[in-house]
Each structure stands twice: as structure tokens, then as C-alpha cells.
């Protein structure tokens, strides 16, 4: 792999790290374009998982024996690695969770249920993933707080005037998806964080689609919270991250109770462990946490700037090629201003039929509402097909997508 920031990715070298990409279905090579749902896992990460289970599998923070020490150190250092990756101050600000959804629920339960009440407002956007939308909706129902939604305009951008209108001194939390998993819109999260902070509200950034695909620095955004998942960035499933500014996490009550999150327990009272362990009750996903650190090493070897450039080039190419169909609707901003995904519908073909026919060409895309039902209602489509790209995808694979779509269109014409 090259090392210069501006050089294009050595995609063939990268692909060699992902044996799954060599799979064929009835002689047709797999074209994996469902990376916004989950990315594939390189050998380096699989090897780290194997090494853990073969050589130092043990519970963390429990034993004084050698294996437990090795596992504990690797697991703790994984927090340091994540902290460094997103520009956090220290491991105290990095809580390992199961996934982005759990990270959001952690804040919703530990902060939202305790701090919100009637008159308080949570500001989301119309393009939020259900992980945030449903969670804050439920917190609002329980606390009497109100949820408001920043409008998405016809081009798929946030209406920032509307955001300025909605975010007021009644706002306690602004939670915004950094890159829409449906529209591909890259939201101005730093501007929104400024707005939130002007009104003493917290800013929660849903980084599920952004952290895997571009440099994200919590300091630059000035995010109070950031959530993302390991399995969308070359890591395994079962590991997610909640970043929170240390003083905020420090003031929050625990979300789950049990082992490892305590300091002193009597029959009457308990006190809490230090950050981040206060929020990691019970035996955590040790191996997955360590493997996430390995995935970060893998991505940083490539360089997040180059990952971003590759994503954007493929998204633009896909957008342009798909635009060749006159009877296609592509959702979200133009090709030169979006994250690495394109959701669309062919006029005469239901998204599930599209996906089924693409599958016959061994092209894997997502079809459905992508966990954004209210946004799909607004778009007037119950479902869409979505192609999403990652470091190992090529223009030739986009061409195969377009060929398969042409076939689907023909079949249904």
C-alpha cells in the first residue's frame, strides 16, 4: 500500500486482504455494495480475533493471572486507540458498547430519563436513523419532553434556517446524523454543535456512516457525544463506541449495573468505578474491542483522507452512471456532494424486486426503508434500493450494478 495522502487506493492490494470478495455465485463474482449496512472484515482483523482466542482469551479486570493481565491491557489499550482515532482526550471518554444504537440508548437512559422533563426539547432531523429517532421519541414520552425535527429540503439538505428556529433555550439535546444512511447527505455537524452550544444544549453526533469513511475529529466538531459501530469499519459485530466529553460522562449516572462498573458494594449501597468502566457493566465484548483497534490500525495504514476520497469518487461515479437511466429517482444531494452511498428507485420496479434481480447478478445491495421510515414517507417511497461503497469497491463494480439494473428494467418494461 502507498503512503502518500493524495495517491489513490491500491484497491487490488486491499481486496487481497478480504477473501470473502473472491466468492462467486453460480460462477458470477460477488459485487458487495452493502457496506453502509456492514463492511467486510480484512484478514488482519480476523487474525487478531483468532490470536485472542488462541493465545490470551481471558476475562478482563478480574484475575491477577497472566492471561487476564494480557487481555485487560489489550482491551484497555483498544480504548486508547479509539480515543486517538477520533481525537478524544483520553480513554475516559471512550465507552465500548454493542453498537451505535446502544450508544444512543446509553445516553437516552443515563442522561435523558434523568435530566429531561416537560418543557425541555430534543432537536433531531427528519433524516435520523430509527436508532436515534425512536430512542428520543420514547424518552420524550416518558419524560414529557418534546422532540422536534429539522426539515430536510427537496435536495436532501438540512434546512439550516429551520434548525436556527428550532434550537432555542428550551433545547437540551441536539442529535444529528453526520452522514444520512439514506440520502448520503453530509450534515454540517460543527455548525449545529455551535448552535446547540449557543443555547447550552448538548450535541450528539451519529457517526455510524461518517467515522468509517472519513476523518472525524470530535474536537473539530466540538461534539459532546459521538456514536459509531465497529462492524461498518472493518471490525466485527458486537462492538460500538460512545464518545462523551469527560465532565459530562462523569456527571451521568450508570446505565447498566453489575460487575466491573462498581468500586465499593455493601448490602445497602454501591459506588461507581471510574470512567469509562462505570458504563461497561458485566463482561464486555473483549475480543471485539481488541479487534476494533486492529481495524482502526488497518484503516489508518490506508489513511482516512484517502478512504474518504475513494468513497466520494465512487459515489459520484455511481450517481452519474445511475443518472443515465431516465426513469430512475436518486435520493439526496448531487453526486459531487455526498457520502459513499446512493439510494434510488427505478420507476416501474419495486425496490425489493430490484434487489432480487441484482442478487441474480451477484450484486448485493440493500433494499428497504434503511431504518428511516418517516424519511421514506416524506420521499413518497415505502422502500428504496441502496448501493454503498467501501475501500475495496471499484468502478467496474459500479458498472456491473448499472448493467444488472438495465436488465431489471428490461424485465419489468
Amino acid at each position, binding site marked *: 500500500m502507498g503512503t502518500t495522502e493524495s495517491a489513490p487506493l491500491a484497491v487490488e492490494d486491499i481486496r487481497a486482504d478480504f477473501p470473502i470478495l473472491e466468492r462467486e455465485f453460480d460462477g458470477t463474482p460477488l459485487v458487495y455494495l452493502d457496506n453502509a449496512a456492514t463492511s467486510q472484515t480484512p484478514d488482519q482483523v480476523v487474525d487478531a480475533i483468532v490470536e485472542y482466542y488462541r493465545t490470551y482469551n481471558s476475562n478482563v479486570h478480574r484475575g491477577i493471572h497472566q492471561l487476564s493481565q494480557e487481555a485487560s491491557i489489550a482491551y484497555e489499550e483498544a480504548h486508547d486507540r479509539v480515543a486517538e482515532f477520533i481525537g478524544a482526550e483520553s480513554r475516559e471518554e471512550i465507552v465500548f458498547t454493542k453498537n451505535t444504537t446502544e450508544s444512543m440508548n446509553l445516553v437516552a437512559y443515563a442522561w435523558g430519563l434523568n435530566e429531561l422533563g416537560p418543557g425541555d426539547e430534543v432537536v433531531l432531523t427528519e433524516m435520523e436513523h430509527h436508532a436515534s429517532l425512536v430512542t428520543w421519541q420514547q424518552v420524550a414520552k416518558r419524560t414529557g419532553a418534546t422532540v422536534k425535527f429539522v426539515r430536510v429540503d427537496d435536495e436532501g439538505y438540512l434546512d439550516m434556517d429551520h434548525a436556527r428556529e428550532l434550537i432555542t433555550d428550551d433545547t437540551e439535546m441536539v442529535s444529528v446524523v453526520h452522514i444520512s444512511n439514506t440520502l448520503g447527505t453530509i450534515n454540517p455537524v460543527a455548525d449545529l454543535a455551535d448552535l446547540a452550544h449557543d443555547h447550552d444544549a448538548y450535541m450528539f453526533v451519529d457517526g455510524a456512516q461518517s467515522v468509517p469513511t472519513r476523518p472525524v475529529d470530535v474536537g473539530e466538531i466540538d461534539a459532546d457525544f459521538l456514536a459509531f459501530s465497529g462492524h461498518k469499519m472493518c471490525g466485527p459485530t458486537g462492538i460500538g463506541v460512545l464518545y462523551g466529553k469527560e465532565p459530562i460522562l462523569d456527571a451521568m449516572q450508570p446505565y447498566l449495573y453489575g460487575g466491573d462498573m462498581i468500586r465499593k458494594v455493601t448490602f445497602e449501597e454501591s459506588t461507581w468505578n471510574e470512567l469509562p468502566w462505570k458504563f461497561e457493566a458485566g463482561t464486555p465484548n473483549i475480543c471485539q474491542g481488541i479487534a476494533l483497534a486492529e481495524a482502526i490500525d488497518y484503516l489508518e495504514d490506508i489513511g482516512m483522507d484517502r478512504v474518504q476520497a475513494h468513497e466520494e469518487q465512487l459515489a459520484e461515479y455511481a450517481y452519474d452512471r445511475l443518472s443515465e437511466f431516465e426513469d430512475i429517482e436518486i435520493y439526496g444531494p448531487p453526486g459531487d456532494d455526498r457520502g459513499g452511498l446512493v439510494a434510488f428507485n427505478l420507476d416501474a420496479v419495486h425496490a425489493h424486486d430490484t434487489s*432480487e434481480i441484482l442478487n441474480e447478478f451477484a450484486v448485493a445491495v440493500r433494499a428497504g426503508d434503511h431504518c428511516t421510515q418517516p424519511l421514506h414517507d416524506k420521499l413518497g417511497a415505502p422502500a428504496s434500493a441502496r448501493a454503498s461503497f467501501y475501500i475495496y469497491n471499484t468502478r467496474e463494480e459500479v458498472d456491473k450494478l448499472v448493467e444488472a439494473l438495465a436488465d431489471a428494467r428490461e424485465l419489468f418494461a
Partner: protein
Amino acid sequence: MYRQQILDHYKSPRNYGELEEPTFTHVGENPMCGDTIEMQVKLDDDEEEIEYVTFQGDGCAISQASASMLSEKLQGMTVEDLQELDRDDVVDMLGVDISPMRIKCAVLAEKVAQDGADIYFGELDVDKTTTEDDD
């Protein structure tokens, strides 16, 4: 999966529309897919045999072709026969392999017709039928 028969029924649905005097009308919806089907059934005077069936709907090829084919299949069947239909019968009728993820699309029309009959005969009380919770 998309044999000619399914595409033909999808593009030119049979018995599409409304009956003048249906014995019962029932609606089904799979909101996650966006498939909707309304079926109207006219029974004979003894309310034992199905005389006419029409449907209207919107959704994927599998769901709509299944409704179209079922509307033909049901005419002349008894209500009892209708209630005995199961997913294997629907898959046989479609004549193609249906992947596990798409079974809910294939059986929506069948379930709508069955639930419609059950509601009419007072054996069921639901507003809308869905097959998204079935698997």
C-alpha cells in the same frame, strides 16, 4: 425467480378493480415492504362458494402477481377450501422458488382473503392483515 408467469401477472393483473356488491372486503399491508392488497370477494347465496374475486394493490412483483393469480384460483372454490390453503399452495401456484425473505410478500394475498372470510363469519377481529410478523 421472475418467471414469465409472474411478470405477466404483475404487468397485466387479472381481476383488478372492485366488485359492485362484494360479500366482504379486506385489506392487508406489509408496511416495511410497502406492499398493500385489498381483496373483494362475492360468495354465492349459500355463502359457501366463491363466485368472484377482485383485488387492488401496490407493491413488489411477488405480492401483486400472487394476488392476481390467487384471484383466478379462488373463483369456484369453497370458503372451506380457501381456509385450507397454506404457504406451500401459494408457492406451488407461483411456480417459482421463493426466498425466505420474500415469503411474506407471496402469502399476503392469501392471508388477506382468509382473514376477510374469518372476519365476515365473525371468527376474527382485525382491521388490517399483515404477514410481516409471521416468520
